[in-house]
Protein backbone atom coordinates (compact mmCIF):
# COMPACT_ATOMS: atom_id res chain seq x y z
CA UNK A 1 0.00 0.00 0.00
CA UNK A 2 1.44 3.34 -1.05
CA UNK A 3 1.68 6.20 1.42
CA UNK A 4 1.29 9.42 -0.47
CA UNK A 5 -0.79 12.29 0.78
CA UNK A 6 -2.24 15.41 -0.72
CA UNK A 7 -3.80 18.43 0.95
CA UNK A 8 -6.21 20.03 0.61
CA UNK A 9 -8.52 17.51 -1.03
CA UNK A 10 -10.83 20.28 -2.25
CA UNK A 11 -10.16 23.98 -2.66
CA UNK A 12 -12.44 26.79 -3.83
CA UNK A 13 -10.63 30.08 -4.20
CA UNK A 14 -11.00 33.44 -5.87
CA UNK A 15 -9.09 34.71 -8.88
CA UNK A 16 -5.71 36.23 -8.13
CA UNK A 17 -5.04 34.30 -4.93
CA UNK A 18 -1.79 32.45 -4.35
CA UNK A 19 -2.22 28.77 -3.56
CA UNK A 20 0.04 25.88 -2.64
CA UNK A 21 -1.00 22.28 -3.09
CA UNK A 22 0.85 19.93 -0.76
CA UNK A 23 2.13 16.46 -1.59
CA UNK A 24 4.09 14.20 0.74
CA UNK A 25 5.20 10.59 0.55
CA UNK A 26 6.70 8.41 3.25
CA UNK A 27 8.23 5.74 1.00
CA UNK A 28 11.56 7.47 0.38
CA UNK A 29 10.88 7.57 -3.36
CA UNK A 30 13.33 9.52 -5.49
CA UNK A 31 10.94 10.47 -8.26
CA UNK A 32 7.81 12.55 -7.83
CA UNK A 33 5.30 13.84 -10.35
CA UNK A 34 2.41 16.26 -10.70
CA UNK A 35 -0.39 15.57 -13.13
CA UNK A 36 -3.37 17.65 -14.15
CA UNK A 37 -6.61 15.99 -15.16
CA UNK A 38 -9.82 17.52 -16.50
CA UNK A 39 -13.02 15.42 -16.38
CA UNK A 40 -13.11 12.69 -19.01
CA UNK A 41 -9.61 13.49 -20.17
CA UNK A 42 -6.21 11.88 -19.81
CA UNK A 43 -3.76 12.76 -17.06
CA UNK A 44 -1.17 15.26 -18.25
CA UNK A 45 2.27 15.49 -16.67
CA UNK A 46 3.00 19.09 -15.65
CA UNK A 47 6.06 18.69 -13.39
CA UNK A 48 8.44 16.00 -12.24
CA UNK A 49 11.44 15.64 -9.99
CA UNK A 50 14.08 12.93 -9.86
CA UNK A 51 15.52 13.99 -6.53
CA UNK A 52 16.14 16.80 -4.09
CA UNK A 53 16.77 20.16 -5.78
CA UNK A 54 15.91 18.82 -9.23
CA UNK A 55 12.67 19.73 -10.99
CA UNK A 56 11.58 19.65 -14.61
CA UNK A 57 8.56 20.79 -16.55
CA UNK A 58 6.34 18.12 -18.01
CA UNK A 59 4.81 17.84 -21.43
CA UNK A 60 1.81 20.04 -20.62
CA UNK A 61 2.68 23.69 -20.14
CA UNK A 62 1.61 24.98 -16.75
CA UNK A 63 1.85 28.30 -14.96
CA UNK A 64 2.45 26.51 -11.70
CA UNK A 65 5.85 26.04 -10.08
CA UNK A 66 7.23 23.27 -7.87
CA UNK A 67 10.05 22.78 -5.41
CA UNK A 68 11.84 19.75 -3.99
CA UNK A 69 13.76 20.70 -0.89
CA UNK A 70 13.13 17.42 0.90
CA UNK A 71 12.80 13.95 -0.56
CA UNK A 72 9.36 13.43 0.88
CA UNK A 73 7.81 16.77 -0.04
CA UNK A 74 6.86 18.13 -3.48
CA UNK A 75 4.55 21.17 -3.24
CA UNK A 76 2.98 22.89 -6.24
CA UNK A 77 2.33 26.64 -6.21
CA UNK A 78 0.15 28.90 -8.31
CA UNK A 79 1.14 32.55 -7.73
CA UNK A 80 -2.11 33.96 -9.09
CA UNK A 81 -4.98 31.55 -9.57
CA UNK A 82 -7.28 31.93 -12.58
CA UNK A 83 -10.48 30.10 -13.61
CA UNK A 84 -8.47 28.30 -16.30
CA UNK A 85 -6.56 26.58 -13.48
CA UNK A 86 -9.71 24.79 -12.37
CA UNK A 87 -8.88 21.09 -12.56
CA UNK A 88 -7.87 18.05 -10.56
CA UNK A 89 -4.21 17.87 -9.57
CA UNK A 90 -2.70 14.47 -8.83
CA UNK A 91 0.67 13.83 -7.21
CA UNK A 92 2.58 10.56 -7.71
CA UNK A 93 5.91 9.02 -6.77
CA UNK A 94 8.06 6.08 -7.77
CA UNK A 95 11.17 4.40 -6.41
CA UNK A 96 14.59 4.39 -8.05
CA UNK A 97 14.23 1.05 -9.79
CA UNK A 98 10.47 0.96 -9.92
CA UNK A 99 8.36 1.39 -12.98
CA UNK A 100 5.10 1.83 -11.11
CA UNK A 101 3.95 5.24 -9.97
CA UNK A 102 1.83 5.52 -6.84
CA UNK A 103 -0.77 8.26 -6.70
CA UNK A 104 -2.17 10.42 -3.98
CA UNK A 105 -5.92 11.07 -3.68
CA UNK A 106 -5.74 14.31 -5.64
CA UNK A 107 -6.77 17.93 -5.06
CA UNK A 108 -9.83 19.28 -6.81
CA UNK A 109 -9.30 22.99 -7.43
CA UNK A 110 -12.05 25.41 -8.36
CA UNK A 111 -11.07 28.99 -9.13
CA UNK A 112 -13.95 31.44 -9.21
Amino acid at each position, binding site marked *: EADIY*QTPRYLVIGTGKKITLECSQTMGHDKMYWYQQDPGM*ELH*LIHYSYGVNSTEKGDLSSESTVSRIRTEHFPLTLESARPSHTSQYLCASSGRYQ*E*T*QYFGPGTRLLVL
Partner: protein
Amino acid sequence: DQQVKQNSPSLSVQEGRISILNCDYTNSMFDYFLWYKKYPAEGPTFLISISSIKDKNEDGRFTVFLNKSAKHLSLHIVPSQPGDSAVYFCAASLGEYNFNKFYFGSGTKLNVKP
Protein backbone atom coordinates in the same frame (compact mmCIF):
# COMPACT_ATOMS: atom_id res chain seq x y z
CA ASP B 1 -0.76 14.77 -29.96
CA GLN B 2 -2.16 12.00 -27.82
CA GLN B 3 0.23 9.05 -27.76
CA VAL B 4 -2.03 6.71 -25.79
CA LYS B 5 -5.67 6.35 -26.76
CA GLN B 6 -8.64 4.66 -25.20
CA ASN B 7 -11.36 4.97 -27.79
CA SER B 8 -14.21 3.62 -25.68
CA PRO B 9 -15.25 6.14 -23.04
CA SER B 10 -17.58 3.62 -21.39
CA LEU B 11 -18.35 -0.08 -21.19
CA SER B 12 -21.23 -1.90 -19.53
CA VAL B 13 -20.96 -5.60 -18.63
CA GLN B 14 -23.09 -8.07 -16.72
CA GLU B 15 -21.69 -9.46 -13.49
CA GLY B 16 -19.83 -12.72 -14.06
CA ARG B 17 -19.06 -11.98 -17.71
CA ILE B 18 -15.77 -10.86 -19.21
CA SER B 19 -14.82 -7.19 -19.42
CA ILE B 20 -12.37 -6.24 -22.16
CA LEU B 21 -10.85 -2.77 -22.11
CA ASN B 22 -8.71 -1.64 -25.01
CA CYS B 23 -5.84 0.77 -25.46
CA ASP B 24 -3.80 1.85 -28.50
CA TYR B 25 -0.51 3.70 -28.59
CA THR B 26 1.57 5.36 -31.26
CA ASN B 27 5.12 5.53 -29.86
CA SER B 28 7.08 2.34 -30.51
CA MET B 29 9.65 3.42 -27.89
CA PHE B 30 7.27 2.72 -25.01
CA ASP B 31 8.71 -0.21 -23.06
CA TYR B 32 6.36 -0.60 -20.14
CA PHE B 33 2.59 -0.49 -19.91
CA LEU B 34 0.27 -0.25 -16.95
CA TRP B 35 -3.40 -0.23 -16.10
CA TYR B 36 -4.75 1.92 -13.31
CA LYS B 37 -8.18 1.90 -11.73
CA LYS B 38 -9.79 5.06 -10.41
CA TYR B 39 -12.80 5.48 -8.19
CA PRO B 40 -14.53 8.87 -7.90
CA ALA B 41 -12.78 11.31 -5.56
CA GLU B 42 -9.72 9.06 -5.29
CA GLY B 43 -6.38 8.91 -7.03
CA PRO B 44 -5.59 6.15 -9.55
CA THR B 45 -4.47 2.85 -8.04
CA PHE B 46 -2.10 0.51 -9.83
CA LEU B 47 -3.74 -2.64 -11.14
CA ILE B 48 -1.42 -4.58 -13.43
CA SER B 49 1.53 -3.98 -15.74
CA ILE B 50 3.41 -5.58 -18.59
CA SER B 51 6.88 -5.17 -19.99
CA SER B 52 7.34 -4.81 -23.73
CA ILE B 53 9.29 -8.09 -23.79
CA LYS B 54 6.14 -10.00 -22.83
CA ASP B 55 2.81 -10.45 -24.52
CA LYS B 56 0.73 -11.49 -21.52
CA ASN B 57 0.66 -10.95 -17.80
CA GLU B 58 -1.90 -12.41 -15.45
CA ASP B 59 -2.83 -11.53 -11.88
CA GLY B 60 -5.90 -13.25 -10.52
CA ARG B 61 -8.96 -12.09 -12.44
CA PHE B 62 -6.93 -9.55 -14.41
CA THR B 63 -4.93 -10.29 -17.54
CA VAL B 64 -3.17 -7.78 -19.75
CA PHE B 65 -2.31 -8.62 -23.35
CA LEU B 66 0.22 -6.72 -25.43
CA ASN B 67 0.37 -6.80 -29.23
CA LYS B 68 3.46 -4.79 -30.16
CA SER B 69 3.02 -5.09 -33.90
CA ALA B 70 -0.45 -3.58 -33.62
CA LYS B 71 0.59 -1.19 -30.83
CA HIS B 72 -2.38 -2.39 -28.86
CA LEU B 73 -2.97 -3.64 -25.36
CA SER B 74 -6.04 -4.87 -23.61
CA LEU B 75 -7.16 -5.64 -20.08
CA HIS B 76 -9.40 -8.64 -19.48
CA ILE B 77 -11.35 -8.99 -16.25
CA VAL B 78 -12.87 -12.42 -15.66
CA PRO B 79 -15.29 -12.76 -14.00
CA SER B 80 -16.41 -9.15 -13.69
CA GLN B 81 -17.75 -8.04 -10.33
CA PRO B 82 -19.81 -4.95 -9.37
CA GLY B 83 -16.83 -3.71 -7.33
CA ASP B 84 -14.86 -3.48 -10.56
CA SER B 85 -17.02 -0.55 -11.64
CA ALA B 86 -14.56 2.33 -12.00
CA VAL B 87 -12.63 4.30 -14.59
CA TYR B 88 -9.69 2.37 -16.03
CA PHE B 89 -6.67 4.22 -17.38
CA CYS B 90 -4.04 2.77 -19.64
CA ALA B 91 -0.54 4.22 -19.29
CA ALA B 92 2.71 3.78 -21.18
CA SER B 93 6.23 4.55 -20.04
CA LEU B 94 9.45 5.42 -21.84
CA GLY B 95 11.37 3.74 -19.04
CA GLU B 96 13.98 4.51 -16.42
CA TYR B 97 16.17 6.64 -18.66
CA ASN B 98 13.24 8.96 -19.27
CA PHE B 99 12.50 9.34 -15.58
CA ASN B 100 9.59 6.94 -15.88
CA LYS B 101 7.43 9.57 -17.51
CA PHE B 102 4.00 8.16 -18.13
CA TYR B 103 1.56 8.89 -20.91
CA PHE B 104 -2.05 8.21 -20.09
CA GLY B 105 -5.16 7.46 -22.07
CA SER B 106 -8.39 9.31 -21.34
CA GLY B 107 -9.93 6.35 -19.50
CA THR B 108 -12.79 3.91 -19.95
CA LYS B 109 -15.61 3.92 -17.45
CA LEU B 110 -16.59 0.34 -16.66
CA ASN B 111 -20.02 -0.39 -15.22
CA VAL B 112 -20.58 -3.95 -14.02
CA LYS B 113 -24.27 -4.61 -13.55
CA PRO B 114 -25.42 -7.02 -10.82
